[in-house]
């Protein structure tokens, strides 16, 4: 280290200190550029909030990280996970060369060997068993470009719709909910609403831990505006609970009647917006249209008292919650896995939308029904990019022949290559793998052997069939079963776009070269495709921009128009919120209303008297659904008296492939635990830190107890992160009939001291 460098840091430190009190020290500004370190704009690799990050590079090594002050989402703040994110690049568990399984053991191979093997195996399977014997399982952490390439290879070239991804396990119900209620996927508003609302309605979300930066914004806003109310419906007393004005604790899986009862109170006490309902709302029961009066009749059964009994809560609280919702000028609902990961996930989503539609709290600043996403690019790459078995890029659906033709045209493949029937959704896909119907699978950037519900059921399939895993880290639960493991470039080592919760697409810069022989996933897929004989279709992709530029042509004219979000623009700006129909368009704050280019383009007669027009619906009306209240798939009973629920912690992420490599984070939370209510603990003679056995109909798990009043009596909470304490051997793989999303959040368990 040179004296100059130290002097430089000193003058920087002085300049920074002076800047903090609004003073500019003479002569310090120029020196700021003398450092050899350069800062690069990127997006956080963890949750779906989409925080901006600046990565500091010196000598081709990432050495520093800071929150991007110019980013509107996090304004320079980060959570503790992200604070250590750059160190994950240099994790000891980074995979740096291709591996091929020989005699049950992974041995290093060259790229050529590995890709030739995969290509020949895939071609062989395709020829002998048909294209549907192959499948692609992607990720909400893959870049849009990566998902797009896989989509093109499997759908457009191989010819199967067996393209799904882990967002099926987290966001599918929200997609279903948005589509059913509003006709188009993804939220109407953005994070901007947080600082404009009068009431936060948080359902099934532990925002403080799962989306810390959203929570920080929410808290800071409430601290400045004490009149802002926060209502929480969640069976667990999470850290989010601390800021609640009212917290309703329904039995896990029994929150539907609570929301119906709230709707009833809103109607009965006159909090509804008659004008809004008349002009832009339709009513329906499960499958046919009904009238508003029929909806009211349906709600008769859901008096607060009746709902309170079903959910085991206090009827007064339901009335209070409804009144708070009704009295607030604007309201913003937020939810995440607590609603989505349920066999009635779509319905639960609909019921939240109902409250907003009935009171007209939509389409105005501060009011929104806002789903929080779990993964950084679940919205972008998978929901928008068509990474699920029934959808195509640009919010298109597989079932629509025009949609298929449009996509096939851009891909340069025959339209009939893309099958008309949706492929297999995640659980069905792994079931087929286990049955041997799917004989080859390509897993990209995800860890299904750990993250699937009832995971152990699907391990034999992964072991027996030809499994290719493209990963940055080794080993993981899934790579153990892989026949070929391909080393993928990690965040910071590749360029691409992430689309976060608020419809914002943000560009990530490539800061350093990939470790070892690791390569960018999109190019791995390109080269695999070429080896499989699709040179004509794939040889043209030479840069990330090539892929993105092609992808955005597919969004032209759709509700998620990204035509204006070119690489040139994205590199400069802190993301763009679609629709962005042209390069001079600033992005859209609110959809379906004035300011949304699609709304503005509507003929005047359609807009007549309507401040919102839901153009995804034939009549432009959003739907209020009379969904019957239904409990979880596996209710508790005498034999399995506990409701088991799972979730995230602040310090860790998913299956620990990333956060598990950071000693500081492991120090904060070194191992899993089962949260048990003190009352239950006393009955069963369990003390804090005791080993307990949690058993469900699918498996059992020995795990240390954490006796704490967070879960209510009769409920157990286990975080999902650890392979050694894999809670997914317990969870149920029953899925929502609409969204096919599994019910991670509720299953019946029994508990005893080990």
């Amino acid at each position, binding site marked *: 280290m040179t004296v100059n460098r130290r002097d430089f840091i000193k003058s920087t*430190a*002085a300049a920074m*200190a*002076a800047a903090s*009190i609004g003073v500019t*020290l003479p002569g310090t500004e120029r020196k700021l550029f003398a450092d050899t370190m350069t800062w690069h704009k990127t997006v956080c690799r963890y949750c779906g909030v989409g925080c901006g990050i600046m990565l500091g590079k010196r000598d081709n090594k990432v050495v520093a990280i800071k929150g991007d002050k110019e980013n509107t989402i996090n304004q320079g703040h980060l959570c503790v996970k992200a604070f250590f994110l750059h160190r994950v690049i240099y994790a000891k568990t980074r995979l740096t060369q291709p591996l091929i399984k020989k005699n049950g053991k992974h041995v290093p191979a060259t790229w050529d060997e590995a890709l030739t093997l995969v290509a020949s195996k895939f071609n062989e399977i395709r020829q002998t068993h048909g294209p549907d014997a192959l499948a692609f399982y992607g990720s909400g952490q893959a870049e849009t470009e990566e998902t797009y390439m896989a989509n093109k290879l499997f759908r457009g070239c191989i010819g199967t719709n067996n393209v799904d991804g882990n967002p099926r396990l987290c966001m599918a119900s929200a997609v279903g909910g948005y589509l059913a209620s509003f006709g188009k996927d993804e939220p109407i508003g953005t994070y901007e609403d947080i600082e404009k609302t009068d009431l936060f309605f948080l359902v099934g979300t532990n925002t403080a831990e799962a989306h810390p930066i959203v929570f920080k914004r929410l808290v800071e806003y409430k601290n400045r505006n004490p009149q802002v109310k926060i209502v929480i419906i969640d069976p667990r007393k999470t850290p989010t609970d601390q800021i609640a004005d009212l917290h309703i604790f329904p039995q896990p899986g029994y929150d539907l009647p609570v929301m119906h009862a709230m709707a009833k109170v809103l109607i009965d006490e006159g909090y509804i917006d008659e004008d809004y309902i008349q002009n832009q709302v339709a009513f329906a029961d499960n499958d046919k249209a009904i009238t508003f009066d029929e909806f009211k009749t349906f709600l008769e059964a859901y008096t607060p008292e009746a709902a309170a009994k079903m959910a085991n809560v206090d009827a007064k609280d339901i009335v209070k919650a409804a009144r708070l919702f009704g009295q607030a000028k604007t309201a913003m609902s937020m939810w995440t896995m607590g609603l989505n990961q349920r066999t009635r996930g779509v319905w639960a989503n609909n019921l939240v939308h109902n409250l907003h539609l009935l009171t007209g709290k939509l389409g105005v600043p501060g009011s929104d029904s806002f789903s929080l996403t779990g993964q950084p690019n679940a919205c972008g790459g998978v929901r928008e990019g068509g990474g699920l078995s029934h959808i195509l890029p640009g919010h298109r659906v597989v079932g629509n022949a025009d949609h298929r033709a449009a996509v096939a045209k851009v891909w340069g493949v025959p339209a009939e290559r893309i099958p008309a029937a949706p492929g297999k959704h995640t659980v069905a896909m792994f079931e087929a793998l286990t049955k041997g119907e799917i004989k080859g699978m390509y897993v990209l950037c995800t860890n299904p052997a750990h993250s699937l519900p009832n995971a152990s059921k699907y391990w034999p399939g992964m072991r027996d069939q030809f499994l290719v895993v493209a990963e940055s880290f080794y080993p993981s639960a899934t790579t153990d079963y892989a026949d070929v493991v391909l080393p993928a470039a990690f965040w910071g080592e590749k360029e691409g776009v992430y689309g976060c919760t608020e419809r914002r697409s943000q560009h990530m810069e490539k800061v350093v070269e990939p470790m070892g022989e690791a390569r960018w996933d999109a190019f791995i897929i390109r080269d695999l495709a070429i080896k499989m004989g699709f040179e004509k279709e794939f040889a043209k992709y030479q840069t990330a921009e090539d892929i993105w530029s092609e992808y955005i042509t597919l969004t032209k004219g759709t509700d998620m128009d990204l035509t204006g979000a070119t690489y040139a623009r994205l590199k400069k700006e802190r993301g763009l919120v679609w629709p962005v129909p042209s390069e001079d368009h600033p992005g859209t704050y609110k959809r379906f209303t004035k300011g949304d280019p699609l709304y503005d383009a509507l003929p005047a007669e359609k807009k007549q008297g309507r401040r919102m027009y839901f153009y995804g619906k034939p009549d432009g009306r959003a739907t209020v659904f009379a969904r019957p209240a239904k409990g979880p798939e596996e209710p508790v009973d005498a034999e399995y008296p506990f409701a088991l629920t799972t979730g995230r912690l602040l310090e860790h992420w998913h299956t620990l492939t990333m956060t598990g490599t950071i000693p500081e984070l492991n120090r904060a939370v070194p191992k899993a635990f089962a949260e048990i209510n003190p009352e239950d603990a006393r009955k069963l003679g369990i003390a804090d830190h005791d080993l307990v056995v949690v058993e469900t109909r699918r498996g059992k798990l020995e795990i240390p107890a954490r006796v704490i009043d967070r879960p209510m009596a009769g409920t157990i909470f286990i975080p999902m992160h650890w392979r050694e304490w894999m809670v997914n051997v317990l969870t149920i793989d029953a899925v929502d009939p609409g969204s096919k999303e599994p019910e991670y959040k509720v299953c019946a368990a029994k508990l005893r001291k080990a």
Partner: protein
Amino acid sequence: MPIAGVIIQTDGNDNGQVLEQLQAFKNVYTYGVHKGNSIVAVFDCESSKELKGLADQITEQVQGVMGVYPAYVNYEDEMEQAQE
């Protein structure tokens, strides 16, 4: 070896005398008095522990100092060491 940019808040009575006392610390560099009661200074320390100790020491020992508020801390070197 962390370097910290700090604001030393004084009571504003005799900033010259505070500055004089600060000169006695060999790893403290001052960058003038601003806005009447804020001294911009840089601490150049061997360890974060020393950094903290220095801040405490100044708060306690130097007359007229109301508080030491870090605005920027550079840990790069320490972090590199940790990585190695």
